[in-house]
């Protein structure tokens, strides 16, 4: 179960809509107690060098920066978000093959430039499947 606080959620949706028709990506900073709570959405650059309408790539350096940012605020990086322009918020084969089992992966579906729906996913260590995680915002 992952809960995204209103400010963070507003920032994520705004980021995903602003980068449309390209995919956006970023880190979710928050804390894990009984449930995961996202307090801050940190937009990061989509570093994929090809067509960014259907792909994204996070630079490890940016993730390292996000981790420092989180630690300095007494928070942790607990997940990654990205958008799927004009298609559903599923966890694609490409998402799975480039995932990491340590984080929640929130996917935002953006249709015609506007937010449509979102899902959160938990990939396994072997990158063979991802389970859906309950998401509230």
């Amino acid at each position, binding site marked *: 179960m992952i809960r995204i606080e209103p400010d963070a959620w507003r920032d994520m949706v705004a980021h995903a809509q602003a980068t449309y028709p390209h995919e956006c990506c970023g880190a979710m900073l928050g804390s894990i107690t009984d449930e995961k709570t996202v307090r801050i959405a940190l937009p990061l650059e989509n570093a994929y060098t090809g*067509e960014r309408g259907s792909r994204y790539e996070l630079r490890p350096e940016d993730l390292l920066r996000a981790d420092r940012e989180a630690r300095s605020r007494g928070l942790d990086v607990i997940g*990654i978000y990205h958008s799927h322009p004009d*298609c559903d918020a599923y966890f*694609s084969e490409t998402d799975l*093959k*480039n995932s*990491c089992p*340590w984080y929640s992966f929130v996917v935002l579906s953006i249709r015609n430039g506007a937010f449509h729906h979102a899902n959160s996913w938990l990939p396994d*260590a072997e*990158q063979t499947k991802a389970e859906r995680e309950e998401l509230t915002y």
Partner: protein
Amino acid sequence: MAKVLIPTPLRQYAGKQDSVELSGSTVGEVLNALTTQHPDLRRQLYNDQGKLRSFVNVYLNDEDIRYLEKDATPVKDGDTVSIVPSIAGGSVAAPPEPAVAELSKDEVLRYSRHLIMPEVGAEGQLKLKAAKVLLVGTGGLGAPLGLYLAAAGVGRIGLVDFDVVDFTNLQRQVIHGTSDVGRKKLDSAADRMHEINPFVRIDKHEVALSSENALGILKDYDIVVDGTDNFPTRYLVNDACVLLGKPNVYGSIFRFEGQATVFAYEGGPCYRCLYPEPPPPGLVPSCAEGGVLGILPGTIGLIQATETVKLILGIGAPLVGRLLLYDALAMRFRELKLRKNPECPVCGDHPTVTKLIDYEQFCGILKPVTTEGDIDPTEVKAKIDRGDSFVLIDVREPHEYQICSIPTAQLIPLGQLPQRLDELDRDIEIVAHCKSGMRSARAVDILTKAGFHARNMKGGILAWSDRVDPTVPKY
């Protein structure tokens, strides 16, 4: 002491700590200390083969250790080691195909010398544009392949490589330039290819091709071009191509000679029909050990590129069932007839290999070469300085010895060692070295069996240059 920062999700395996202070002189030692102290972390970070998982990057302060000295990167007091995952993704499993219905005005201009040949024409150029070709390796063979296939307008080109450009590459890997040294080969190659032809889509696969990932990567392509330099990957590419029914455009090079053919194409033979068994490890030297004429991979890579384009266009007589042999010194091409072997374990009538196997094991490559009794170059230096009684032998070839050598080392090339044992004293310890430690490991084996007390200098003269005397040139 170095500080290792533990990412949140892994803290449960590290006693809930967000960082751990550990001692160790290299990143490898620090990580080893970490996973010894917290064994549950090991499974999170390493796969069953003991390699870091594909999504795990390790940073020392702000630098990825892959671009430093990897595991051997030295660690100072107060350094910070971070574990950072690599993450990417996208909405589609295979990114959208380029529209192939027609050529734009710019493309007509660009490809005009193709278009005016009836064998290619607009129809052929559209086939090239719709084609998906995977290049395994962006080294000697991959360089001309990448340049010319991009120029020819192959619509989608996948590149598989995980290496970075090195000065020793530039003598033949013409897709990379001097200013690219230190960059990822994938980035360097892709930039150059896009510069030649921005209409081409390039997929970068920054992985070592393995039994776990090969089918997933190869399945999206029509043709696979093998530009690798080692037997395990060659068998892996071959078997994956046979299992997926994709042609494997093969090339190989050694010193002044090369080979090329097309395997696994419509009933033709495969690599295993030609070579059912790999050679014993160490018998066939790699380019790094045996050398290669810099131009040779150009010639062979372009034969592979030509065959690739012919297969896409469906013109001419493909190099199927024929092994083309090229001898640069004699400047002669010969052809051997190849037949499909009905008993072939992978493409024969009753295949026994029906999924990918462990190719390192198949090729007899033991994961870590025996390290017991190995001696570090710094320890050898200390022995020399102390005046310890021992003999240092260099088992490389005389021309390598001329490039660089270690003072006090006695040259006995590996091939002559069995005949020259009587020059050595059984009562004095022998330390053997070569370029990187492979040949000297075999020398130690020979010496030990003959009753000598011998040890292998780890990492050879390359490690000596790194850790003892940086004035010794690397080659």
